[in-house]
């Protein structure tokens, strides 16, 4: 049912962590919205109209104007509905939040996606890369910018918690599907503790899909990706960014890539 007061519509996909980010911030701010589930192998004309450049979810429609790219959407929502802010007020803190959001999407996310799309020696190398990236975040939690904080945003969830957190549930799924250990609590105790705190939040529990649905989905995609890998000569490490995968697998890789 469309909420005419806030005038918000969200085009998303149930397995997309990028979509979850937007759903979570809307929930935190107590904003009603109309949700449209997109079938990514059969995108609606509306989606293609509102996001002609990338043709991806999520797309936020507010007062009939589209906003795309999840980190951009998150900031738009924060700047438009200013109660319960997710960005810090101080310019330096804001710069730090943005820096680490981009790190999550440009480095950590693709690294996790590469783990999902590879096997054998290639996968070992991909796992090592994820660990390198997690080490950097762990360092900031232990002795850097985020030292002593319950969440990256401080006492309450902020934009970086949302960006890193939505999609981190895939880590547990991947551990199970591929028998890799991405977030070893001994190697990354603070990150591990933060993740548990994040996932315990009521709003987060309401957004994250059921684990068996995620497992089933991931198993299916993994089988398909390995099948594609055998058929093609494309190196596994590019699986996260190749355009030869179908929309379904790119959703999971995208979802994985949102960690």
């Amino acid at each position, binding site marked *: 049912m469309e909420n005419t007061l806030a005038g918000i519509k969200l085009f998303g996909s149930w397995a997309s962590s990028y979509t979850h980010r937007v759903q979570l911030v809307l929930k935190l701010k107590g904003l009603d919205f109309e949700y449209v589930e997109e079938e990514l192998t059969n995108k609606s004309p509306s989606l293609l109209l509102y996001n002609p*450049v990338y043709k991806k979810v999520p797309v936020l429609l*507010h007062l009939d*104007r589209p*906003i*795309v*790219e999840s980190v*951009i*959407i998150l*900031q*738009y929502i924060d*700047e*438009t509905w200013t109660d319960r802010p997710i960005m810090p007020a101080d*310019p*330096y803190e*804001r*710069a*730090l939040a*943005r*820096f680490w959001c*981009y*790190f999550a999407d440009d480095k950590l996310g693709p690294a996790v996606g590469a783990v999902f799309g590879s096997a054998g020696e290639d996968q070992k190398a991909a796992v090592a890369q994820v660990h390198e990236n997690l080490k*950097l975040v762990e*360092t900031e939690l232990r002795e850097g910018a985020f030292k002593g904080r319950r969440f990256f945003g401080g006492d309450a969830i902020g934009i970086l918690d949302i960006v890193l957190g939505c999609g981190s549930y895939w880590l547990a799924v991947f551990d199970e599907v591929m028998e890799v250990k991405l977030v070893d609590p001994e190697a990354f105790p603070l990150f591990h503790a933060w993740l548990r705190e994040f996932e315990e939040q009521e709003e987060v529990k309401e957004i994250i899909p059921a684990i068996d649905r995620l497992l089933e989905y991931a198993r299916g995609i993994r089988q398909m990706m390995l099948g594609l890998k055998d058929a093609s000569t494309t190196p596994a490490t590019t699986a996260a960014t190749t355009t030869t995968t179908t929309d379904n697998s790119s959703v999971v890789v995208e979802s994985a890539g949102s960690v």
Partner: protein
Amino acid sequence: MGEEGVKLYGNILSPFVLRVEWALQLKGIKYEYVNEDLSNKSPQLLQYNPVHKMVPVLVHNGRPIAESAVIVEYIDEAWSDFYPLLPSNPYQKATTRFWAKFVEEKCLHGSFDVLSRVGEEQLQAVKEMQESLKTLEGHLEENKFFGGETIGFVDIIAGWMPSWLGMIEEIIGIKIINEEDLPLISAWIKDFLDHNLVKETMPPQEKVMAHMRAIRENVLSAMSA
């Protein structure tokens, strides 16, 4: 300490450092420029940017910020009472950020593909680059700059293109930007290169060209190894 506490770690070869210099100078901010030898990075740089170990890094009152787009937004917010670089309206701001990201993802990576490929693959990369520029052109509409009458955030983020794409065209011997196909982008390039600030901060072309030729050689020899 105020404005005196502004230090920029950079290198003349880096278009990303230029973005920060444009932002600082448009805002009239005084800063100390620290030149980094990229083959022998200083301990300070590695301390200030342990994640990427790259220039530019802005240090303001002792606190470091890395990543050029992050730095430029920081400059806009920390010095907010003169020459806004981003619009204040949230929707226009979101649109601005979108096109800046598009430039980074499509045009920047696309230009590297153009520079580092050969034969059919290179021609394909040129074609994709032209399509990206055509898409970007739509955002210019009737304006002189992406920021309107004056240089704004997207101009700053895209500002490497006028000179760097020209240099790439010369190195590879293929024209990427044809005036008939990309009239608005071509006009923007002329206006941008004609801007006093751009003229004053233009790096020495021979040095940059030599650097880009070296990049191309390295990639090609790695491929054939």
